[in-house]
């Protein structure tokens, strides 16, 4: 059984009358890599700052291993932060930056030197100890910030969009490196990002936030394949939303749904369905099959855009009723019909069972608490 390390309960926060967090509950397990994901203004940074102690909740409590931290100042919390713009002390060398936290603990000099050198070796910067932060590249500064935060052996590492200032390639390298560090150190990582790809590839669990509410809490796979609501489905990855209408509920845990005039049989969803009810049929671009126009199966449309992506071919298809469909297909050298020209008529289909159904929500997506643990 996983042990809860940090427990947030009933947290609320308002800034100038605007609600940033609204009675939010979250349990963070010992040793996990958990990501707070959401668009800007969703409350993810505020939440992280509350864990660090830079902000205090209007209501609610924060406990770490049973100990109440709600009003503990940041300097007395056994947590450390990696800041978005690194926040390295510009007047100190790399060594002094990393040693700062240990000096504040009044550790003996020998121990400080040893631990700082270990931390710098861990991020492969042992030769840069004498440099000043402004003499380092962005990626190197990032590593110093990480070394400075982990050298104190915190119970938890809080990372506030730490990779957002790096270019794409470096970001990928740092993602891998952060994962490796987390495995080696066994420290709980709380990672804030607005980049859903980053969240999916790094985390054990993802918390999708919007307007101070948790939209969904689950593994990357759950969040991607079984989004709890339309917001999560839209925010995490690309999705085709097809309008469906329940034709009939069958006895064998399946329902028949009318999609673009096609009668398709789907697994019965978690929510209650009644005949004639409108719902959304969600299909990821990679679930879509593009077929030749003479096939019996599928909905007719034509190709309006195609992007060669190396390993996949991404196309945009307009159906006859104007619906835009994104399709992403892996190359299949045995399929002679694979390549389409622009404007070419095709049929769009999918494999039943790969879809995900969500109830129709009044637009814009309702702000109900859909917590799915």
């Amino acid at each position, binding site marked *: 059984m996983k042990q809860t390390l940090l427990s947030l309960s009933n947290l609320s926060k308002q800034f100038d009358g605007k609600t940033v967090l609204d009675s939010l509950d979250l349990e963070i397990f010992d040793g996990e890599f958990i990501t707070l994901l959401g668009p800007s203004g969703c409350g993810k940074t505020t939440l992280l700052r509350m864990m*660090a*102690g*830079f902000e205090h909740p209007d209501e609610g409590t924060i406990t770490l291993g049973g100990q109440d931290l709600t009003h503990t*100042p*940041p*300097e*007395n919390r056994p*947590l*450390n*932060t990696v*800041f*978005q*713009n690194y*926040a*390295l*002390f*510009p*007047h100190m060398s790399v060594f002094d930056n990393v040693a*700062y*936290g240990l000096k*504040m*603990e009044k550790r003996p000099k020998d121990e400080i030197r040893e631990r700082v050198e270990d931390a710098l070796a861990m991020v492969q910067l042992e030769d840069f100890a004498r440099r*000043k*932060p*402004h*003499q380092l590249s962005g990626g190197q500064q990032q590593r110093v910030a990480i070394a*400075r*935060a982990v050298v*104190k052996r915190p119970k938890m590492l809080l990372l506030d969009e730490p990779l957002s200032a790096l270019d794409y390639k470096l970001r990928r390298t740092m993602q891998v490196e952060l994962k490796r560090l987390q495995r080696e150190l066994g420290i709980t990582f709380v990672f804030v990002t607005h980049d859903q790809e980053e969240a999916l590839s790094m985390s054990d669990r993802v918390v999708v936030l919007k307007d101070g509410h948790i939209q969904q809490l689950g593994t990357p796979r759950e969040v991607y394949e079984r989004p709890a609501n339309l917001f999560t489905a839209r925010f995490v990855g690309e999705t085709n939303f097809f309008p469906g209408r329940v034709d009939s509920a069958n006895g064998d845990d399946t329902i028949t749904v009318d999609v673009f005039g096609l009668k398709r049989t789907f697994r019965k969803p978690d929510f209650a369905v009644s005949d004639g009810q409108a719902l959304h049929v969600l299909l990821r671009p990679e679930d879509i099959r593009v077929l030749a126009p003479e096939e019996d199966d599928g909905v007719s449309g034509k190709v309006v855009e195609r992007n060669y992506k190396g390993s996949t071919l991404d196309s945009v298809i307009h159906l006859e009723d104007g619906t835009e469909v994104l399709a992403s297909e892996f190359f299949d050298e045995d399929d002679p019909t694979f390549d389409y020209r622009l404007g070419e008529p095709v049929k769009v289909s999918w494999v039943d069972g790969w879809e995900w159904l969500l109830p129709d929500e009044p637009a814009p997506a309702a702000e109900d608490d859909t917590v799915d643990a």
Partner: protein
Amino acid sequence: MRSARQQPFRTAVLILVWGWLLFLVFTPNLLVVGASVMTRDPGTFISLPLNLDAYRQLLNPLYLEVFLHSLYMAAMTTLICLLIGYPFAWSLSKVARQHQVLLIFLLIVPFWTNSLVRTYALKLILATNGLLNSALMSLGLIEEPLQMLYTEGAVIIGLVYLLLPFMILPLYAVFDDLRDDLLRASHDLGAGRFSTFIHVIVPLTLPGVLAGVMLVLLPAMGLFFVPDILGGSRNLLVGNVIKNQFLDARNWPFGAAASIVLTLAMAFLMFAHRLSKRRIGEEGV
């Protein structure tokens, strides 16, 4: 690279700037250096032969005493400006942006009045039957007027009043640049308020402190009209000595030598300021 057509303009600007510096900065200073190594002459003010008598005269205990007293008053002024200006600039950087502009504006408004006039105004306040004494007496705090004018205190009050903005503005600039996340990082790493102040805030605002000291300490040794109006005969500044040598004693070499020493002191402070900025990775001034 600039195109050839822009070259004449560029050349003209450079000639103007260099010409200005050469004729209005370099040459006068060179003349002062020249005067300082010449001999006093009652008729032509200065004459040959060249010698270092003027500098030797500076070491005269009488002048040394004036210099030290002047340095003391200037240092007190600087210290008081720093003690007021540091928290002032810090709080200024914390208030909302639109209010900051207004507050800085209010700080600059007194500059529109001539500082001589403002010093006379201060004299009216500090005088024996001036504003301050009358106020204190009518409040019953004192029985008879205090002697405030023509004291060392009056000179320091005058200097602080005139020079405080020069301390606040550079300090405000460094506090404005001080990023909150550095303070957060310090707390996050286990430092309390005091440790953060000593290890992060002070070193990062040091260039502003030195710039402020530079802008206050040296003028505070030179603003001769402040002791003239507020200080009486015993509270002289180096500026008074220089002024007196040129205008009253007619000893140009000695006045020039005193100016040179003051200039060298300024150069030393600027060097220290540059060094402190380089430490935190900024370009020199």
